[in-house]
């Protein structure tokens, strides 16, 4: 079954990987930050190799976002993302896993999960979940 993993984060500056730009990461030692990076690269390697990773995208700064609304035939484009919150979507990954537990396990291994949130959402149109 396929799942969308969304990284929601509130970094101090925008850049990838996002988890290195958080206040929590700033408070860490160089070794601890290097450890997080290693964990992330290991995760990416693992899910690429297993064929579980379908797609991965890093998103640009929310400052570059534009929200488009069309009301009464008139197009209104405002600067900024739709969701006005501290946490913004930093990137997304689509994984194809055997179980929802595996999708959650993968989500939990993103370093972002330690100080932010990784949302896991099943995609529609998938195969029936084997119970």
């Amino acid at each position: 079954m396929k799942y969308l993993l969304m990284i929601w984060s509130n970094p101090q500056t925008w850049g990838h990987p996002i988890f290195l730009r958080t206040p929590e990461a700033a408070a860490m030692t160089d070794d601890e930050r290097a450890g997080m990076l290693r964990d992330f690269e290991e995760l990416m390697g693992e899910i690429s190799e297993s064929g579980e990773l379908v797609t991965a995208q890093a998103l640009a700064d929310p400052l570059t976002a534009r929200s488009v609304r069309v009301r009464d035939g008139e197009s209104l484009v405002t600067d900024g993302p739709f969701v006005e919150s501290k946490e913004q979507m930093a990137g997304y990954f689509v994984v194809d896993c055997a179980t929802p537990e595996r999708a959650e396990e993968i989500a939990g291994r993103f370093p972002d999960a330690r100080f932010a949130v990784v949302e896991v959402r099943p995609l529609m149109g998938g195969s029936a979940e084997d119970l």
Partner: protein
Amino acid sequence: MVTDDLWRSVTPQVIGALVRRYRDFDRAEEAAQEALLAAAAQWPEEGVPDDPKAWLIRVGSRRLIDGLRSDEARIRRELADATKVPVDDLVVPPAYAAGPADHDDTLTLLLLCCHPALAPAARIALTLRAVGGLTTAQIAHAFLVPEATMAQRISRAKQRIRESGAEFRMPPPDDVPERLREVLHVLYLVFTEGHTASSGDSLHRIDLTAEAIRLTRQAHALLPDDGEVAGLLALMLLTEARRPARTNEAGELVPLAEQDRSRWDTAYVREGVALVTDALTRTRLGPYQVQAAIAAVHDEAPTAAQTDWEQVLALYGLLEQLAPGPVVTLNRAVALAMVEGPVAGLAVLDDLEQDKRLARHHRLHAVRAHLLEMSGDAAGARDSYLLASRLTTSIPEQDHLRRKAEAL
């Protein structure tokens, strides 16, 4: 004239022959693909050889040897490994590998592709590729992933086989039943993937249900006395028989009870019933045979009202002993409701509430809704149908559940 069927059926035979000779599954699979490509390029101009398979094996062998020669370090390792091969392996094949070489190669290949060291997704990909003869692109398309992702899965699967030290030969006789169960499970997964995807999907996807049936037929031909292989084939045929009635003109899902049975494939029903009847009388009982028997009871009922629910209930009871699981229990709850009334069925569901996995699964709520509807609780049924519709990830199923809710 080389038909698509010829390509597909010759693939496992060529791979089998190459693996037998060179004992390297990874290289054999690649060499076979290269030989097929060469044939596709040369035969239209030069004509199809008298013995296409021998041609492919010859060309594949040359490619394989060229591949070995070009990598010195690997040659040294191959030679070192070759000296470790027991003398027996070089001389006489094991007794259970006797028989038509082609047939045994396909079965051996099937067992190898479904090796326990591989993840289920990897087994599926490798089986469809090496035994099914499908291209990576076709398999990727069927499973809705990018081709590169599928290529990665296949390549990783072959690597895992190499790392696990699995060899191209029949497993020890004691291991065969368990290994065969893995194969049947893979074929079952391919079938259910195709079954789920069949409603409202794009035209050019390889028909996975047809592929699953084809491979299971092959397995049945190779192992005609195995009850579970026959059972699985019967189950697939009896399920597939209903496909023409499963969606209406508007592309909407039609549940079993409401299907126009005149649209069912009678040939498939006949074949499926014959297979399961034969298996049940001759061989040891297994879960696929029981599931096929249940499907046979449904498929033999001229109308939904004439379904022998007592038999269905008894069979689910049996299935719960052989292969217990939440889906079996859910289905048994439905059968129980049909025999003893909805309250009895709902009581079974209450027991299932404890299972956390089920609480978030649409099936539990869909069945509860159905039973509540039967018992006259329209409001409760509507709530459950709506919840089920929100939890399912199948669009046709979602539409169906919403319609059921709105009808109340």
